[in-house]
Every structure is written in structure tokens, then in C-alpha cells.
């Protein structure tokens, strides 16, 4: 039993000399194309799907059944990056499903959103997201995230506290859209962090 557990743990997100396999989830055509390119430039293997449902299918979680013969390819997903606002299953719901799964809960999940809403960020972090990225996602964001995971340092420690500080900077939800900040100002705010 113990031996199996060890083997199991070894199969989880640790990456040695291999590349990270990232599963990216976004309903937007444009954003799928961009995130795929960002990840490829960051030397990752990328699988892109257009919905939470498809993401779960890919992981083999859709039936809710835990197969003993686990799909080898999907077992090797080292990181999941998902958009927040998607029709059908939201990124938040996908996050929850992944964290509820005994097989996949250790896979880091990063949530991306164009909306800088404090409560949204908080609930994602509380639900176990490693990171919350503001769209449009930059290469520096992706590199930072993938570097972190490649190094195998649990993101849950330092990164989380960094995120807490970041969210202090966020504009509260009600004023987000009415904020006089231009997109480029928001972007530079983001990159300062």
C-alpha cells in the first residue's frame, strides 16, 4: 500500500528534465490562441480546451467515476490554467471539481480573469487556486508561474501571501467597470506586482 502511494505521489506534478504539460481552458478563441503561444514560448507542452466540461473529460473526471485504469496522458498534467468567466461551467466550478478530486487535487490551478474583483480573487484562492492572473495575460506572468512549478516549490506558501498583498491593490467590484483607470494603467499596475 505504502509503495503504491509513493509511486502515486511521484507521478504527481513533479517535473524533472521534462517539460511541463499544461491544460489551458478558455471559451475565447482569441485567448486560447494567445495562451497556447505564451505557454509554448515558456517551453511547455500545451493542451487547450474550450470549456470546463471538456477539461474534465480530458482529465477523465467527467463521469465522476474514478477509473483504475487512469488515462496516462491526462495523468501527466502539471498545471491547469483556466479562464474564470465561461458559459456552462465557470472556471471557479472547474477549480472546485479539481480540488474535490483525490487524483487531481494536487495539480496547481491558475485562474485567469479580465475582471479585477476582490471577492472573486479571494474565493478562488480560498478554493485552492495557486494564482489569479489578470487578463490580458502577459508572457512574464506565464513564465513566472511555470518557473515556479518547474522548480517544484509548493506555490502555496510564499506565493499565496504575495497574492494577498496583490489583492489589497485591487479595485473593489462595484467600481471596476466605472473606474477611470485605463486598461493600460491597470496593466502597469499588474506588472508592478
Amino acid at each position, binding site marked *: 500500500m505504502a509503495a503504491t502511494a509513493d509511486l502515486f505521489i511521484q507521478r504527481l506534478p513533479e517535473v524533472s528534465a521534462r517539460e511541463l504539460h499544461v491544460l489551458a481552458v478558455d471559451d475565447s478563441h*482569441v485567448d486560447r490562441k494567445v495562451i497556447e503561444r505564451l505557454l509554448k514560448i515558456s517551453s511547455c507542452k500545451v493542451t487547450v480546451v474550450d470549456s470546463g466540461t471538456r477539461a474534465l473529460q480530458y482529465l477523465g473526471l467527467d463521469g465522476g467515476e474514478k477509473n483504475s485504469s487512469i488515462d496516462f496522458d491526462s495523468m501527466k498534467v502539471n498545471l491547469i490554467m483556466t479562464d474564470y468567466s465561461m458559459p456552462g461551467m465557470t472556471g471557479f466550478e472547474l477549480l472546485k471539481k479539481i480540488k474535490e478530486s483525490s487524483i487531481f487535487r494536487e495539480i496547481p490551478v491558475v485562474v485567469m480573469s479580465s475582471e479585477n474583483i476582490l471577492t472573486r480573487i479571494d474565493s478562488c484562492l480560498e478554493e485552492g487556486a495557486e494564482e489569479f492572473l489578470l487578463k490580458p495575460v502577459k508572457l512574464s506572468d506565464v513564465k513566472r508561474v511555470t518557473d515556479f512549478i518547474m522548480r517544484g516549490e509548493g506555490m502555496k506558501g510564499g506565493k499565496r501571501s504575495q497574492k494577498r498583498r496583490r489583492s489589497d491593490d485591487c479595485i473593489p467590484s462595484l467600481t471596476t467597470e466605472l473606474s477611470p483607470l485605463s486598461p493600460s494603467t491597470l496593466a502597469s499596475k499588474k506588472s508592478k506586482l
Partner: protein
Amino acid sequence: MDVVTQMQRQLIQYTSSLFQEGFLDDQFNQLQQLQDESNPEFVVEVVTLFFEDAERLLNELSKSLQVEQESIDFRKVDAQVHQLKGSSSSIGAQRVQRVCIAFRNFCEQQNVEGCLKSLQEIKQEYSLVKTKLETLFKMEKQLFAARGSISR
């Protein structure tokens, strides 16, 4: 000044003007940095996806707003504008994005007139940025061809 240098200058000037006039923002630069010899058409490909997305969404928005005023589904309209805002932001189409933000405010207020006005504005801004980007890509292509013919 030889032709290629002249074309390069024009391209730089044209690109600059698009940024200065607010049609494009830094995100467009970010996309250009993702392009290289292994992916020489990346920006064109992404922008083409944006054009497809935008046109589909503008059609849907027109339909959503063409109904009886009392039966306008503002949540649906807002969701559609949100999508358009997202993709315009992803390619750096700043002016389109800004009108989307205003549009969403009108949706929240359930302000029909505001929504109709915003839709018109978005159509205009989209049409402008599309023309400008197509011009930009054409200039790039011509420059590439001119460089190519010289090195032969």
C-alpha cells in the same frame, strides 16, 4: 533613401500613429513579441480570430437589441459585450475595449438608448480598427516582399 528604408519608415510611422491615436495599446506590442521565425504569422492569426469573434458578436448584439424594448435581455447583451471586451483587450484594440466598458454600464442601468448608442459606436470603432490593422498587415507584407526581392 532606398525603397526598403522608406517603407520601413512609413511602417514605423503608421504603427506609431495607431498607438498615439489610441487604436492600439501595449497588448498589441506584447503580441508582436510573441511572433518569431517559427511563428511568423502569429499576430495576423490572432487578429483574424478577433475579427471573426467581433463580427459574430456584433451580429448577435444587433439581434439582441432589435427586439421590443421591454423584452431586451440585458444579461444576454452584457454577456455578449463582455466577450467582445475580452477579445478586444487581448489584441490591444483599446478604443473598442473602451466602448465595451461604457456599453456594459448601460446594460447594468438597463438603459436602452445608451445600449443602442454604444452598439453604433462599437461598430464604428471596430470598422476603424479593422481597416487600420489590415493596412498595417498589408504594409508589412509589402515590406517583407521588397526586402526579399533585394536579397536575391
